[in-house]
């Protein structure tokens, strides 16, 4: 009976040791991600508008650069040029407001055309 208790405590001890070791490893990895060297960093501004340009494929590359540890370089934010043609011609109310007044023209044609 005494031996059974000893064996039981021995097994529980092994289990306890194993679980504690796993948690310590995870903490260690998270510390590695956070520990970024600050030497030699350059400030890089990322263009936030690039993703919105027609046909642009730059969003993936700019994202991957900022995720890599030690590569936070600022990228200049360049706003997309506004296409004034679209600003007006895609705005129904604007077109209504700026339309020339309709001048009724009485057709002088007679008969089938």
């Amino acid at each position, binding site marked *: 009976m005494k031996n059974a208790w000893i064996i039981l405590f021995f097994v529980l001890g092994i289990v306890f040791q194993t679980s504690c070791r796993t948690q310590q490893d995870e903490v260690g990895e998270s510390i590695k991600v956070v520990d970024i060297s600050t030497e030699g960093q350059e400030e890089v501004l990322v263009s936030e508008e690039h993703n919105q340009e027609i046909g642009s494929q730059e969003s993936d590359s700019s994202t991957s650069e900022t995720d890599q540890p030690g590569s936070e370089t600022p990228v200049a934010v360049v706003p997309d040029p506004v296409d004034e043609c679209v600003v007006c*011609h895609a705005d*129904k109310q604007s*077109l*209504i407001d700026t339309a020339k007044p*309709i001048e009724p023209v009485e*057709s*002088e044609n007679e008969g089938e*055309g």
Partner: protein
Amino acid sequence: MAPLEPWEKVFVNFETFSTTVHGQKSCMECHGGEQSKDKASAHSGLVSRPSEDPETICGQCHPDIVAHTDENLHANLQGYWTAIEARSTSQDHQALVEMFGNHCESCHTSCGDCHISQPASVGGGFIDGHIFNETPSMTRNCTACHGSRVGNEYMGKHEDIKADVHFRQGRMSCIDCHDNHEMHGYPSDCQTCHPGPETASIPSIEHRYDGVQSPRCESCHTPVTLGNDGILMHEQHGGDLSCQVCHAVSYTSCDGCHVAISETSGNPFFSTEGSYLGFFIGKNVYKSYDRPYEYVTVRHIPVDNKSFEFYGANLLADFNNRPTWSYTTPHNIQRNTPQTESCDACHGNSNLFLTIDMVDSDEVDANLDVIVTQVPPSIFELLSSP
């Protein structure tokens, strides 16, 4: 067809258009103009209809289509000039050019007039928010111009006359028969199988009934051609009658169109003496390998020798060189018509044939090759004759 609102004519559905191939270009690449919030400045140097210059604009990506612009009847309006030049002399050419520019040229069709906008002749404007439609709209494009005759006949807009069976039952649009090859001026379907130098020598067509017949009824109704459909009349008359002689019904003819410039408004206008429904069988002036028929349907076209009098006297000095009762293909096809009721529906029935008494005395000489001098006798007379 309801008219487009002014804002609709220039509204760009950018949300959808920007996802299309044509939407990848900036507006100014085709339309010019300037980037400005001010309307007048923005429209400085604007090219409102860039496809008027297809070689420069559309040809960048569609060189194979643009290459045939010169042969495209919708673009070159050659059919008009074939008729005008046949009836006139070279000395009157300049006056006729002025007339043509004022009254006829509006029917000139650019790429955009079929694929983006309504034709200018019916007010223009984007049909679908500037989206390029590969298949033109039957109502906004085709029958916007081809409305008073073909459109009304095809869609059954004449009282007591049914719509064409291809529309009524087949739900077919214009493009189902008049495909892109024909519309783009390709030198007939021959090139599909014979792309060699022999097709390069095919002359340009001079009018819509010139050259290879396209479309052909027999392209879909093949058993008719082969005499395998069990219909006796197809075997008897398949070669000497156009399909429309038996299968069309009454259609529009017009009389006496005159053009001028209004003294009050300064705008060009036309006046037609009259339009009427009727059915007339005449002789085929375009008889050829492609159109071997003896008899065809004809309609009166509204030209007369004073049509262009506003621009000068006697501008159509050779008026009689072309008939005024013209080969026609009415778009109101029916399986069963008055002509198909019996043989004697046509044989011995002078009411159906364009006889000399039906032709205006001033136009008899022009129509000598069309007028039916002897109506086919009744079946009884045929069988009784020795």
